[in-house]
């Protein structure tokens, strides 16, 4: 048993952005146990002020590349709500497809490239090229499928080119969608293969449970990503318009990211929160994947967010096929080249809430009568998880003090990585520091 432990892991690796874990144990007492976000502040909410309604989604895509389509989508929804801009059913299907493609890409990247190495005792995916060549090829194929899906709709997988307030500047070709549908159909084998591997390794995921609150969107007709009302596992349905009171953002010393709390000291967002709140609406394949792992709602082990991501990978494939079928059922309605949706600019405020890879994302803008932003607020999923990561660490550390410092550090890093934090989002973070004496 380690009587004295000093962990100071600066810049936790294999996460998007920068964060530090600091643990200090003296004579068996935990003196420090902190999760600090140390990303350089980005100041996007200020940079949005005075920007035109045609620019906001372009600027906010640059908050984070790995969920750039997500930020673009939330941004456009906020702008459209503020200015009263409608969206056709076809454009809504296309928005969903681009969002599903990005979430698929992001989940595969996290699970295959960032989390998997921990489970096989490696430092990165590179050694797996020798030890697990076929599995890595499978992961790459799924990753590319997500990217290609987004690219067909958005023009590019990183920083969309075609998304506009009220629609798209250019439509995909029908045969592109047909070809993607075929690839989605044939991706089941790849999902099964990844499930086989993860199942084989699942005993490496620590058994740790701590009851917490799960917050996500929920929708009466589908497993919510693009739209819905808010739902808390503690308090039930909530209004999106009350989001500021629900997230209660606060600045915490040591972190450039803001922390949040609703009904308890912390809450969790992301794949596991969505699964816990909306599992009954998953497609049959996704449900089958969940059953293989025995994943049931409500699950309180944050490490199983990795499994929830795999379940969502299956769901996103099913849901993307559904969207493509809806688009192709009557053929795509054509639009002019270089399409620019007509917009009547009026002053107003609007909120865009979207489920994105790491949880529920809010953009909230106020526009003046000239169509320029006077006030902007963005609440990022990763920020909503910071307080929950902190609470998990406080509960977990005292139970693992009998392990070596290296083991403790790995267990804590795996915890942070399980949340798939995207600290580039307006703030970055992840470093384990065992404080030196």
């Amino acid at each position, binding site marked *: 048993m380690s009587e004295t432990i000093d962990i100071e892991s600066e810049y936790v690796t294999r996460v998007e952005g920068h964060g530090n874990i600091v643990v200090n144990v003296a004579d068996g007492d935990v003196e420090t146990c902190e999760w600090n976000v140390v990303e350089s*502040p980005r100041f996007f909410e*200020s940079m949005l002020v005075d920007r035109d309604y045609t620019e906001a989604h372009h600027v906010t895509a*640059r908050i984070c590349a790995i969920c750039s389509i997500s930020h673009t989508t939330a941004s456009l929804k906020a702008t459209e709500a503020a200015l009263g801009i409608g969206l056709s059913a076809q454009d809504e299907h296309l928005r969903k497809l681009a969002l599903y493609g990005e979430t698929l890409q992001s989940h595969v990247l996290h699970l295959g490239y*960032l989390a998997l190495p921990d489970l096989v005792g490696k430092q*990165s995916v590179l050694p797996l*090229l020798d030890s697990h060549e076929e599995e890595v090829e499978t992961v790459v194929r799924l990753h590319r499928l997500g*990217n290609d899906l987004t690219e067909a709709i958005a*023009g*590019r997988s990183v920083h969309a080119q075609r998304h506009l307030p009220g629609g798209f500047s*250019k439509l995909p070709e029908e045969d592109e969608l047909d070809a993607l549908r075929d690839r989605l159909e044939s991706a089941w084998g790849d999902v099964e293969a990844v499930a086989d591997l993860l199942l084989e390794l699942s005993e490496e995921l620590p058994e740790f449970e701590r009851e917490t609150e799960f917050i996500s969107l929920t929708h009466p007709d589908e497993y919510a990503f693009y739209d819905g009302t808010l739902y808390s596992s503690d308090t039930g349905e909530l209004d999106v318009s009350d989001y500021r009171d629900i997230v209660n953002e606060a600045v915490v010393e040591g972190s450039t990211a803001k922390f949040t709390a609703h009904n308890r000291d912390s809450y969790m967002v992301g794949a596991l929160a969505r699964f816990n709140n909306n599992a009954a609406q998953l497609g049959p394949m996704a449900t089958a994947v969940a059953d293989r792992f025995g994943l049931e709602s409500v699950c309180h082990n944050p490490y199983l967010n990795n499994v929830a991501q795999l379940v969502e990978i299956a769901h996103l494939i099913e849901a993307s096929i559904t969207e493509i079928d809806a688009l192709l059922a009557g053929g795509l309605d054509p639009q002019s080249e270089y399409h620019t949706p007509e917009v009547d600019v009026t002053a107003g405020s609007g909120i865009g809430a979207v489920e994105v890879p790491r949880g529920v994302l809010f953009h909230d803008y106020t526009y003046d009568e000239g169509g320029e932003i006077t006030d902007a607020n963005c609440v990022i999923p990763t920020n909503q998880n910071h307080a929950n990561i902190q609470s998990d660490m406080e509960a977990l550390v005292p139970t693992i003090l009998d392990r070596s410092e290296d083991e403790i550090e790995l267990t804590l890093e795996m915890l942070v990585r399980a949340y798939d934090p995207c600290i580039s989002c307006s703030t970055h973070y992840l470093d384990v520091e065992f404080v030196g004496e």
Partner: protein
Amino acid sequence: MTDRPRVAFFDFTGCEGDQLQVVNLEERLFDLLEVVEVVSFREAMSEHSDDYEIAFIEGSVATAHDEKRLVRIRENADMVVALGSCAAFGGINAIRNDQDFETVKERVYGDDADMIEANSEARPIESVVEVDATIPGCPIDREEFVQVVTGLIRGVEPTLPNHPVCVECKLEENECAFHRDEICLGPVTRGGCGADCVGEGTHCWGCRGMVDTPSEDAYTAVLEAHGLDAEEIVEEYQLYWGWQRPQRATQGQAQ
């Protein structure tokens, strides 16, 4: 340079989209690993070494800590490459350079603004260290990245095109955005992207940075036809040039 150069990736203040574009090479990334050895890439691997020849830097410099870290990297590397527009010329981060910094902090952090440590401006890495090569773009183009890397390995001096995006737009036979009553930064933006955003149905946002000297290198014909000049478009419509634009003004005064 050794046969299989040791390369490292570092992220500063940015969205990490340029490193993601490297990952998005998918299978080809593994081909690239045949010719370079990646010794540090925090976003994707826990291994780290300070023994590298080429350092790829993504993101702009926004804090005093960023500056110190960048100087250390420069000391370790034979060659420093600015990866993407934030590293190359400040990029979208530099929008805030035109805003009062106290106001910027207050808007985002309210009463806690004093807790936030950051420089008042977002700057490109060349404002701190010498840069050997630049791959602009938001995000970088995957093909351009592969070309630059293979060039560096073979000892080819990297060059950047200095023609405006308009030239490529004409080659692509796109309809001019100005003819569609849109403002487009193509006449004053450095080409090399194949006018991709215009091809996707919108206009050029200026993400590859200004041509070297807008007043001389701009595609002025299209601007004149629409009653604009290069100065006006640079001053009024830029998103990405919060660092570049005042630099250009300073240089102009020096001349």
